[in-house]
Structures are given as structure tokens and as C-alpha cells.
């Protein structure tokens, strides 16, 4: 009897140990989705939805996503904006217009794993964030915010936010119009910084960089000229501003890279895509 108890205890410990160690997924089995993040200039949601400025406002009103029109031309758009040809009054010399990123996803029933890899583009501009050469933020949305399935992170990007030309309030961060974390109208936000920090917060009526309990780990390193960042996030979430993910469901996802010590709006952003947990989507996390 005692032997049986001992064996059971050992078995349980091993099982728990294996769970705690979060066996990394076999990334060679996770297909890579190529997504080009681009420099967005000054394109808040107010600009996006203004037909006299942005021809695509019509398409958006008709239910078309940004990616449906712009996915293939993200690099061209980035080039136009980063060089000041369009909607960018403050040109940063030498800044990359876009960065092609490979995104992979997997899950093990308990955790979602997201892997981002990209080649470090040229830079060298004045450092806005001296501590971090690079930051990577990901936002998830649980199909509760109107239009989030079309416009991705743009629902949080407003003309009166800090670092925008019309932003008068230095404390005004990203926000969702009518955002309410308790009511589920929010974007779940996780961030990795090259200095080694990780943040788990959300964007509702304002951006909050804490409160989440879903982010287990955010690890990044630069091998040669390539950055590789891996997030490990509990599917269930569990904290404030965490969305609970489940197999068979899809979520809206977007991400941004603050390259070359930038901060605020001077990032490279992705259009809005979908993340499926064992479900067909732009990025699918399959169980391993």
C-alpha cells in the first residue's frame, strides 16, 4: 500500500513538474505566417474612418477589413509614411518603413505560445526609449468590440493620444471609445521589452500595463541579426483584462514592434488578423 502511495506521489510530482516546465512547442511543426508590420504615420481611427481623407473608409463601413485591402501592400504603405510622402509630419531619417515578421502559434491545452521572429532593420535615430532597443506588444480581442474584427488595434489609436500631433495631454494613452474592462470591451495586452521586462495589461478606457495573470513568460533574444520573441500565455487568462481563450474559438489579434529605441506612436504595426485556437484563422495555434 505504502509503495502504491509513493509511486502515485512520484507520478503526480512528475506530472506537475512537466506542466510547470511548460515544454516548449516544436516550432518546426507550427507553420509560419508572414506578416509585414509597417510604419503607420499619423493614422488614428478618426483618420481611418474619414472618407474624405481615406478612401478605404467606405470599405470599412461596408464590413471590409483593413487587411482585405492593404495586406499585400503593407511595405509600400510603410515606405510612403516613413518618408513623409503621406500623413507623417515628423520624418525620422533612416527609419525602416516596414519589417517582415514570421508569426507562429501553438498551444498545449493549458498555454498559448506565440513566436515572433524578424531581422533587425537599419536604424540609428535619436533614442526615445534609452532602456529598450526593441519592444513587442500583442493585443487580443474577444469579438466584443464593434469593428475590432476589421480594424484590429486601430480601435485603440486616437488622434488625441500622446505623441500624436494633436495630442495635448501627455498622459493620454491608447483607449477604446466606450471601453469598459468589466463589461468585456477591452483589448488584452501583453508586452515584451528587450531590457527583459514583461507586462500583462489591457486597453479599455485607458491603457493599463498590469492586472493580467495570463502571461507566464515573455522571452526574447537576438541571434545574429534576427530577433526571436516567444510569449507563453495561459489560455484561460484569469486576471483583470485577460480574455479567456478556448479551443475551437477565434480571436482578433494585432501586434506592434517598437524598433530602434522608439516609443509612443513611432512603432511598426500589423493590420488586424485572427488567431484561432485549433480553429481556422489567419494564425492558428494547433495543439501539440
Amino acid at each position, binding site marked *: 500500500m505504502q509503495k502504491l502511495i509513493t509511486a502515485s506521489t512520484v507520478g503526480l510530482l512528475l506530472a506537475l513538474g512537466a506542466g510547470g516546465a511548460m515544454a516548449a512547442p516544436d516550432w518546426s511543426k507550427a507553420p509560419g505566417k508572414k506578416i509585414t508590420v509597417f510604419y503607420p504615420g499619423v493614422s488614428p481611427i478618426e483618420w481611418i474612418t474619414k*472618407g474624405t481623407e481615406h478612401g*478605404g473608409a*467606405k*470599405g470599412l463601413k461596408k464590413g471590409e477589413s483593413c487587411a482585405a485591402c492593404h495586406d499585400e501592400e503593407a511595405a509600400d504603405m510603410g515606405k510612403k509614411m516613413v518618408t513623409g510622402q503621406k500623413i507623417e509630419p515628423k520624418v525620422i531619417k533612416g527609419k525602416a518603413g516596414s519589417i517582415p515578421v514570421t508569426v507562429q502559434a501553438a498551444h498545449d491545452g493549458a498555454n498559448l505560445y506565440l513566436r515572433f521572429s524578424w531581422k533587425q532593420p537599419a536604424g540609428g535615430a535619436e533614442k526615445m526609449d534609452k532602456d529598450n532597443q526593441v519592444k513587442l506588444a500583442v493585443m487580443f480581442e474577444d469579438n466584443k468590440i464593434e469593428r475590432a474584427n476589421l480594424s484590429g488595434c486601430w480601435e485603440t489609436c486616437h488622434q488625441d493620444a500622446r505623441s500624436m500631433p494633436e495630442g495635448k495631454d501627455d498622459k493620454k494613452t491608447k483607449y477604446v471609445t466606450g471601453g469598459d474592462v468589466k463589461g468585456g470591451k477591452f483589448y488584452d495586452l501583453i508586452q515584451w521589452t528587450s531590457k527583459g521586462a514583461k507586462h500583462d495589461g489591457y486597453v479599455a478606457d485607458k491603457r493599463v500595463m498590469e492586472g493580467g495573470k495570463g502571461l507566464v513568460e515573455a522571452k526574447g533574444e537576438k541571434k545574429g541579426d534576427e530577433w526571436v520573441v516567444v510569449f507563453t500565455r495561459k489560455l484561460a487568462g484569469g486576471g483583470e483584462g485577460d480574455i479567456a481563450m478556448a479551443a475551437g474559438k477565434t480571436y482578433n489579434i494585432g501586434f506592434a514592434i517598437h524598433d530602434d529605441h522608439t516609443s509612443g506612436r513611432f512603432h511598426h504595426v500589423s493590420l488586424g488578423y485572427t488567431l484561432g485556437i485549433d480553429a481556422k484563422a489567419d494564425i492558428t495555434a494547433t495543439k501539440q
Partner: protein
Amino acid sequence: MADDTSVISRCWGVLRRPSAKYSLLTLVVGGFAAGIVFWGGFHTVVEATNTETFCIGCHEMRNNVYEEYKKTIHYNNRTGVRAVCSDCHVPKEWGPKMLRKIQATREVYGKLTGSIDTREKFEAKRLSLAENEWKRMKANDSLECRNCHSMVSMDPEKQKQRARKQHELAQRDKQTCIDCHKGIAHQKPQGMKEDDDE
């Protein structure tokens, strides 16, 4: 007054009386030749008013809209095909063209009264002028655009993703070219209403 009346009635009498001097053939051939000369002359004048040189003969056009148009694809492009002012602003068919020319007499009045003879006056009036033109093009289903372009001749595979999607939506919703292509050859006016771009 009595003299005038007698002149008119004498002329009318000559016109009504069969000719005793000229044969019917001479009259027919002469009339035909005169018709060709008149018709040709009339069209030569009409076509002269359709040239770019005529349009930019006035500084109002030359210094404002023309300068903007010179930076667009309708002026300068890979294939060397140029759409001049009249290609976009005057219908090709005879009836609509004559109607447009009659309407254009208002522009002569505008020229004489100097309604847009300075940059400031032009800018102040630009929105209403543009709205008139958009309204006209909307009403004729973008006739001038369709002289060269048509949805059925487009190959979506050769278009950029954005154009492909927008044309697909336009066809589905039975939109006309000008619904989306305002500002394609000139700057969009300040103060343009969102309704203008519906």
C-alpha cells in the same frame, strides 16, 4: 417700321418662290456644299473649345486646376496616353456635348465678371464648383470616365489588392466612378463634406 416689314416679307417671298434662275441640281449641290462648310466650321469651332490650349487660355484654369492636374497620372504616365480637360469634363456624344457647351456659357459670364479671377476667390468657390461637377458626373454615370474605362474591361488580377477590393465592392453596390474617384486629377477641396464622399 413699315419698311422693315416689307424687307422681311420680300426676303420671305424670295425664299418661298421657286427659283427660275438656278436648276434644282445646282440648288441641291450648292446647299449640300454650303451645309458641309457650315457644319465643318461649326465643329471646328466646337472642337477648338475642347483643346487643352483653349481651356488653359484663361489664367483661372492655368494657374489653379491645371497645375494640380499636371502632377497626376492622367497627365503623365507610363504609356503616354493623356486625358486632357475635355476628355473628363465634356461628353463625347453630340447631344450631351452640345448641352454641356450651352451650360458652359455660364463660365463665360463668370470669366467676364471675374468670379474666380484671384487665387483667394477660386479657393472660396472651389468646393461649390467641385460639387457641381461631381453632381453632373454622378447624374451621367461618370460618362466621361467610361469613354476610356469600364468595369468589364478591367482585369482584377492585374490590379493591386486595394483596387481589386474597391472595384469588387463598387460593382456589387452599383456605384459609379466618381463616387470614389473625386480628387483623381485635382486636389480635393477644403471643407469637403463626408456626404460628398459617400
